[in-house]
């Protein structure tokens, strides 16, 4: 008999299974590499090239908007009629508009307006949507029924028409327009929060925590909120994009930002009268909108994929 590496085989009269705990070192067989949830998220997110690009693009946009006065090549409001409707050139990279203002400089300031406006709308939507959604989802009952019916009702009104109506009542300016956009986004946040909370509420760990004696507030704070955060963050990113679109549409219609200031949407709005003469006035700001919205959407999708929970071990 060869010398046994684990140890001598048990004697024949001894029951080998009793008290046997395995030859392998318990520590060694286990995967000792541990990874925090944050690091796992970062690893997953950074492996998505497109989402990284989107993040960089949004970072760039935010930086440009923040430092607008210092980065613009020209005064965005300075008119120069002699150089109106010029095509892009070395002096005016993105050309000029009908009164000779520099498109690039106006776009840099427009970025500021658009981002702030979108952020305002999303904030309004969050405030109006998340708290009632939490309440409706967690407590259910008649509160849920009433809130859900109101949500249904608001969602039956075509969103842009509702926004227009709200602007119409309050008067056309950017602040009112974005409040309106916030109002029309709120039901989505409410529905999302509600369904996320309802899904979490069914999880056993909520019941487990309740069985321990955790108070309702603590259950909401410690278990429900952290677990609905990821879909909310994804939705915030997506909504930023859609809010920029909505702002652009309202400003295009003349119901948002008012002259002489201009967001990208407003610039397209004024440019379309000169479509045949100076297509760049429409194409460039419009393209900027597409890229920015795309970036937020791609970021949102990337976040969603990075937040995904582990799949349950399937039988293989």
């Amino acid at each position, binding site marked *: 008999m060869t010398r046994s590496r684990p140890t001598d085989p048990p004697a024949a009269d001894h029951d080998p299974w009793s008290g046997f705990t395995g030859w392998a070192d*318990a*520590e060694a067989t*286990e*995967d*000792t590499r*541990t*990874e*925090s*949830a944050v690091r796992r998220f970062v690893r997953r997110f950074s492996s998505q090239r497109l989402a990284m690009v989107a993040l960089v693009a949004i970072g760039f946009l935010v930086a440009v908007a923040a430092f607008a006065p210092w980065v613009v090549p020209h005064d965005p409001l300075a008119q120069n009629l002699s150089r109106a409707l010029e095509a892009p050139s070395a002096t005016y990279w993105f050309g000029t508009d009908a009164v000779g203002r520099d498109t690039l400089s106006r776009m840099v300031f427009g970025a500021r307006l658009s981002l702030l406006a979108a952020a305002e709308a999303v904030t309004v939507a969050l405030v109006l949507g998340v708290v009632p959604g939490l309440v409706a989802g967690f407590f259910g009952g008649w509160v849920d029924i009433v809130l859900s019916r109101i949500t249904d009702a608001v969602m039956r009104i075509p969103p842009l028409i509702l926004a227009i109506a709200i602007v119409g009542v309050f008067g056309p300016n950017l602040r009112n327009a974005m409040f309106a956009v916030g109002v029309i986004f709120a039901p989505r946040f409410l529905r999302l929060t509600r369904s996320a909370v309802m899904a979490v509420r069914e*999880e*056993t*760990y909520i*019941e*487990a*925590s*309740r*069985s*321990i*004696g*955790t*108070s309702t507030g*603590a259950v909401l704070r*410690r*278990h429900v909120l*952290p*677990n609905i*955060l990821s879909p909310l963050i994804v939705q915030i990113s997506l909504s930023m994009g859609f809010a920029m679109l909505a702002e652009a549409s309202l400003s295009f219609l003349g119901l948002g930002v008012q002259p002489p200031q201009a967001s990208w949407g407003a610039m397209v709005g004024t440019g379309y009268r000169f479509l045949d003469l100076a297509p760049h006035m429409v194409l460039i700001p419009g393209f900027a909108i597409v890229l920015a919205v795309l970036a937020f959407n791609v970021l949102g999708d990337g976040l969603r994929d990075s937040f995904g*929970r*582990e799949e*349950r*071990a399937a039988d293989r």
Partner: protein
Amino acid sequence: MTGPAHSTPAGTGSLLEVEDVSVTFTLRTAPLTRAKRLTAVNHVTFDIDRGETLGLVGESGSGKSTTGRAILRLVPISSGSVRLDGTEVSSLPRTQLRQWRRRMQMIFQDPYSSLDPSMQVGDSIAEPLRVHEGLRGRRSVDRVLELLDRVGLARHHLRRYPYEFSGGQRQRLAIARAIALNPSLVVCDEAVSALDVSTQSQVINLLDDLRADYGMSYLFIAHDLAVVRHISERVAVMYLGHIVETGPTERIFQQPAHPYSRALLDASPVPDPVTQRTRHRTILPGDPPDPAHPPAGCPFAGRCPEVKEICHVELPAPVPVVTGGDVRCHLYGDSATPVPVAAADGRPDADPVGGQPALSRREH
């Protein structure tokens, strides 16, 4: 049918006394449809002694899980009384209920959803300590490490997330959380059902050890009869919200009195092909009735191989069995002749009491 017909004698005092408890749910499938009333637990009575394990068996929809949840007041009790150490738990106000919760804990079936995925497992285990003892920081960590050690996990597991653990390990974590406060009663709701055989036996052994160490009582809810037989001293059999039979484990397994208990045992395969091939068994036809539309009389009447006319009319009252426990069946009692009960697992020698349970007459 009130009054503890078979409660333990005064003085010894059972740890848990469940008396005549019913749980009724109102279900509405869609708005504007008629609501259904569903009695998941129907006048259930049993007790558990200190350090004792009561196995609660039954098929899905029998109300066994709901019974466990009702005891912990995770679902509202419609009627009846639940006493822990003589204190009525079913009517405790919310504030006091929290205090009592530390004495009763639960281990759930699905190890994958019973731990908060967004929390490090150390925090999950520490939660009861924080809620009830206000333990935080160092002292809390020390206790959690102790608990991890107790359930056979390593110290470095403290800062990990649930997704990094296998099913068996997660169930150990759930056990650690449940025993953190030294509860008197732990309700194990299908606690080992989702585990593979080899892992399952590890967890069963752990539960056995913990009970020996801490003197806890278990209400062990499971559909796997072999597991229940191994771990329980007494067994209660549920069918459609009713407890149809209770008794000492070996009595139930070797001389089941209720036709349903017998059918359950017949249906559970024995892990030995020769025994399985040769043992006599009746396969029960049909499905259990819809709990929302229970039949009149005995709930088992529709599938019972020994059904009589009265079974469709009248719900039988519990009749004590001399060899232990009681049974709810019209076969026993004043007019009925005692029915020979075949040894359940088909072992010819497994019948020490003579082929039939000694039954007392039904009293009126």
